[in-house]
């Protein structure tokens, strides 16, 4: 019995020992959309970066926004495609980390509020008063366009928390799921990333008779590539700038369409000060 135990202990130790190999650049992304699509998209990104940077690049999928931030913070990934809020959280936790690049659209991002046709809500230029008392779903708890900004505007409009405004508040998990849940009537209304909506509609995946956009928020800064500050020490001087250049130079139309972004432009931490203030106001970060 004891020998058996000892053997198991040895095995555990073997298991714990870090795997030594030439270090690849590992990156992740917030799981904001259907996983199959994300895997396809980011595998292509990994291949592209590997070629541009002449190093091994690996993509690791995670199950939640927080898991993406944690992996970045724990230095298990060095680069990540974050949302506005998750990026702010990550850079606050990892001193020296930097927002590298954002999509052209991300400087002017928006949230769409959508409603099931049975609600009778119509598109208007402010959040309709009659939305009060209906059921409503956010996306992920840690999402910028699916949680932070819609909550901010709900509070602005009604001067009350979402739980007070709506009869039921849920978190669908991701933007694709938000469309599904409102389209099927599980929730009467919801809020999501406008880019996911546009691309799903364009791909014919949405029954626009059952669900439609009723309001769009003012613009704010959202998604960005963020990199750890210590990558130059790890991968060689100038590595960070090479990654930035590779991202900004990405011009494969198919690859860009999978995001969907027109292209990438340089970004800085300061671009996200507004998001940070909003998150603090909603007590989502300390």
């Amino acid at each position, binding site marked *: 019995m004891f020998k058996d135990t000892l053997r198991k202990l040895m095995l*555990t130790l073997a298991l714990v020992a870090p795997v030594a190999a030439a270090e690849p650049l590992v990156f992740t992304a917030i799981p904001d959309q259907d996983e199959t699509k994300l895997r396809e998209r980011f595998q292509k990104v990994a291949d592209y970066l590997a070629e541009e940077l002449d190093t091994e690049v690996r993509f690791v999928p995670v199950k939640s926004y927080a898991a993406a931030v944690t992996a970045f913070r724990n230095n298990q990934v060095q680069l990540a495609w974050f949302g506005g809020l998750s990026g702010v959280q990550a850079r606050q936790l990892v001193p020296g980390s930097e927002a590298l690049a954002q999509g052209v659209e991300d400087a002017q991002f928006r949230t769409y509020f959508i409603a099931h046709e049975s609600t009778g809500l119509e598109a208007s230029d402010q959040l309709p008063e009659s939305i009060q008392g209906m059921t409503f779903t956010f996306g992920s708890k840690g999402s910028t366009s699916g949680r932070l900004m819609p909550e901010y505007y709900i509070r602005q409009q009604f001067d009350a928390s979402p739980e007070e405004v709506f009869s039921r508040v849920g978190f669908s998990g991701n933007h694709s799921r938000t469309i599904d849940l409102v389209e099927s009537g599980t929730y009467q209304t919801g809020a999501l990333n406008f880019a996911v909506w546009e691309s799903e509609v364009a791909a014919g995946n949405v029954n626009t008779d059952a669900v439609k956009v009723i309001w769009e928020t003012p613009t704010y800064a959202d998604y960005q590539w963020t990199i750890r500050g210590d990558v130059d020490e790890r991968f060689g001087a100038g590595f960070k700038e090479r990654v930035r250049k590779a991202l900004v130079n990405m011009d494969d139309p198919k690859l860009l369409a999978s995001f969907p972004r027109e292209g990438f432009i340089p970004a800085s931490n300061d671009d996200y000060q507004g998001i940070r203030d909003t998150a603090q106001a909603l007590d989502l970060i300390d």
Partner: protein
Amino acid sequence: MFRSSSDTAHSGLRRSATVRTSLGFVGVALLCLAIADIQVTTVAPWRELGRLVIGLVTPDFSDPASIGTALMRTVAFAFVGVALGASAGFLLALVFHLRAVRTLCAFVRAIHELFWALIFLQFFGLHPLTGVLAIALPYAGVFAKVYSEILDEADPLPMQVVPAGTGLISSFLFARVPDAWQHLVSYTAYRLECGLRSSAVLGFVGMPTLGFALQSSFAQGYYSEVGALLLVFFVLIATLRFWVRPWLVPLYVVVSPFLLGNGLPIMWGNVTRFFTEDIVPAPLRHGEGWAALWHWFSDLLLTEALPGLWTTVVLTQIALVGTGVIALLTFPLISRHFTTRPGSMLGHVALVVARSTPEYLLAYVLLQLWGPSMLPAIVALALHNGGIIGHLIGRRSNEMTLRLDASRGVDRYAYEIVPRLYGPFLAFLFYRWEIIMRETAILGILGIATLGFYVDSAIQELRFDRALVLIVITALLNIGVDSVARALRRRLRLRHMVNCEP
């Protein structure tokens, strides 16, 4: 395995206490039901259910490699986790008379595997160790308790007749263990089945097991993929006794650690940071003093812990009675007093499916179909736990012999069988009370506002100090319920039965 029981001979007094207790629980559950939110909110709940059923009958096995990998990882995590838990549990069982050990074990097993996984994820990240420890730690606590109970119940005679001067270890191994061996083995085998379920569910937080693939396929509405994964899982559990042979177990245990996958390397600095910074309450971390700490704590208690606690208790009480109802309704399916052989085969299949589907998975599925309320959670908990208890008391009823002229049908059910089974039935139910509560808390991660919802929110906001306080509160609640259940069992003099533990 079951001890012969004396609970068929009810005295008038005892029966009334049993009946009163049962009615009390039903009354509380009805009250809870009256205030609980059990609406079906989807517009077309049955259409989605139909799509799921179609998916189940048209399973998509077109990607055998990924299903196979997920399956292999599920088995590997279960074996390594359970083996570590059993070894540690056995050692702890030897010193289980120490209060400190008992308390420690009660505490680690009061925290659900998924919560442990969420904690380890913060510093080990997506490394196999996260999943292995998430299973091994709470299981060690359970094993320690049950092993020590089994050893205590072993026949004391051999121990008394070993020659004077026999060493402690030899007398233990030769006089104590042999009598208990069968029970130790069968309990460990049962926990392995639980381990497979736990391992599958860990996929929902990012481990590379079945849950990972299942969640992805489900979230995207690929019901045929879901069907394939579920079927594979049912077959895995149902055929357990064919592929887990005693002589194969050492082989599995040795090979499993190499099949866990690589994950991402661990950075040990993160461990230190977690314990010295992350879980230190924010006001202390920022040096704001004790008054700020009290404010932080009371705010957390009032806005999150208490509402979460309330929902958890309400949901648990409804699910507990639901479990009882399902168990009493389903046990005849496998009882020879009510069915013929082919009928009982079908009954067995139904109960195997009910008990091998983890509550978490079932609740996840029902939540997608019916929308967010307590209903999916209640049904999931009642089906899964009712399936387990129905299976246990059904098996037990098969050990009973009735008079040749015993009544038939409903009369046989109501006047012959159920009265004789009621004692063990309640004992099983009280055993599962704590388990149901632990699961109820965890279902919060799916969006029902039990304690798990607030734990998950705190983790999503990367506020581990808050998450930890809420997890500890959840653990204390479980420990409390466990001791109430134990007191009730003692008061109703329900015999102790080791092998129905969690």
